[in-house]
């Protein structure tokens, strides 16, 4: 069994048990469990979280951050500091017109605004921020939200 085929299964459904993985990949349960454990230890599998549709609840924002790189460390130290805030759900270094893309979740607009003005903008090295609020989620982590009702096949067909 390759690690990749196990990862592919778990990426489509992280709740699969070791028995179910074994059935799908045609391996023993112990082999499935061991492969999963080694992927966890290596840090390829970072965690298992539910993908929650919280459009109706809370506020999310995507914040573009421009910052000054440090000699030696580049953006890493600043990015790690930003990533530690509880409000920050994801943080990426990206190419293009700005440096860090920071995704923030909070209970209200005000909380996001406070986070940006009091914590993020005031950090040393942060040059500017641009905050975009999420209005609606169509797809997340490969899953379409609001899937249309599936079309049923005939139960018996040639």
């Amino acid at each position: 069994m390759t690690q990749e085929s196990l990862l592919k299964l778990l990426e489509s459904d992280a709740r699969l048990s070791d028995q179910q993985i074994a059935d799908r990949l045609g391996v023993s349960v112990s082999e499935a469990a061991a492969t999963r454990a080694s992927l966890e230890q290596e840090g390829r599998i970072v965690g298992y979280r539910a993908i929650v549709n919280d459009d109706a609840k809370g506020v999310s924002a995507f914040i573009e951050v421009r910052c000054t790189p440090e000699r030696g460390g580049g953006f890493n130290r600043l990015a790690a500091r930003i990533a530690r805030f509880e409000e920050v759900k994801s943080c990426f270094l990206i190419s293009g017109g700005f440096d860090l893309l920071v995704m923030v979740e909070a209970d209200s607009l005000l909380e996001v605004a406070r986070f940006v003005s009091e914590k993020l903008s005031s950090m040393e090295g942060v040059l500017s921020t641009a905050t975009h609020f999420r209005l609606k989620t169509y797809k997340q982590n490969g899953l379409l939200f609001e899937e249309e009702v599936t079309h049923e096949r005939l139960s018996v067909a040639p």
Partner: protein
Amino acid sequence: MDWNRILSKQVVELPRSGIREFFDLVTGSKDIISLGVGEPDFVTPWNIREAAIFSLEKGHTTYTSNLGLESLRRAIAEYVGGHFNVGYDPACEILPTVGVSEAIDLALRCLINPGDEVLYHEPVYVSYAPSVQLAYGKATPVETSIDDLFALNPAKLEAAITPRTKVLMLNFPTNPTGSIAPVETLRAIADICIRHDLFVLTDEIYSELRYDGQKHVSIASLPGMKERTLLLHGFSKAFAMTGFRLGYACGPKELIELMCKIHSYTMICPSITSQEAGIEALRNGTPAMLEMRESYRMRRDYIVKRFNEMGMDCHLPGGAFYTFPSVKRFGLSSKEFATRLLKEARVAAVPGTAFGACGEGYLRCCYATGFNLLEQACDKMARFCDSLKPQA
């Protein structure tokens, strides 16, 4: 109305499809897990659906030539050349049809004079014998068995040939058994066809769905066979496009021209939307097909293992998406077993007899169903099989 006088005797006397019969039984039953479906459980890959939508958006809503779009025929020639290793001229040797079913009907009507005999292997897809009969031919089954893993035995084939035999119909990988004919078997069959001057209709609709990593071999690609073979293929199974109703026939231009004559009077052409979606499938559909195939393979391995564990003897089928387990050891006929399985375990599978008399003792179980449903179906079937075993 005196329907006895009005209706065609030939069609009235044509037997109803065994699948249709079982469908009536299942319809109306609730909470059934169905292994009786003969189509992919995947939705057509998005890039192909998008090509269909784009075709409509551009206002392509007309008839096409009876031969279909030239661009489609060119794409078919290229795909068939690579996949089957046979070259066909897109100008005159390829005819896009409304599914392989239409192509079979056209071909038989173009080949058969009343009383000509057509051989086909059984168990096989339900339409072959009726299509032969509707063309006023005589359909003669050649039984296959588990001993040959349901591939056609050349000796049995040769024994069934008579002076009136004109056509041989083949379907490998086979619906309902998932059988693949080994190359040496195909060679022996080709040799028989050449010696007895038979024409071959080969329905290779499942040819992409082969799980042993070997390349599919078409009988049309064997020496001396292209000139006496009509190769039938389509989009339904490989690209999950059953609802598009698109297939094609490749063969000698004399036959293609005659088929196109009937086609021009009856179907005119497959819908242009489907034809343009088909081009996208042939050009860019292979990665999605390979993903689906890998998913079918996992399910095949699982269901065959479970069937054998629950006491149904089941060989590992090489292709398509069907298993054909034996229920003989339970002492019930295929139909009794399938009917009780439906009523008591709420799982639908088609009795092997729907595909020919020699399917007695077997069930067709399609594994093109979500893995979670397959697990549930297997659990239910295992309990059902236990309930049939004599109590100690």
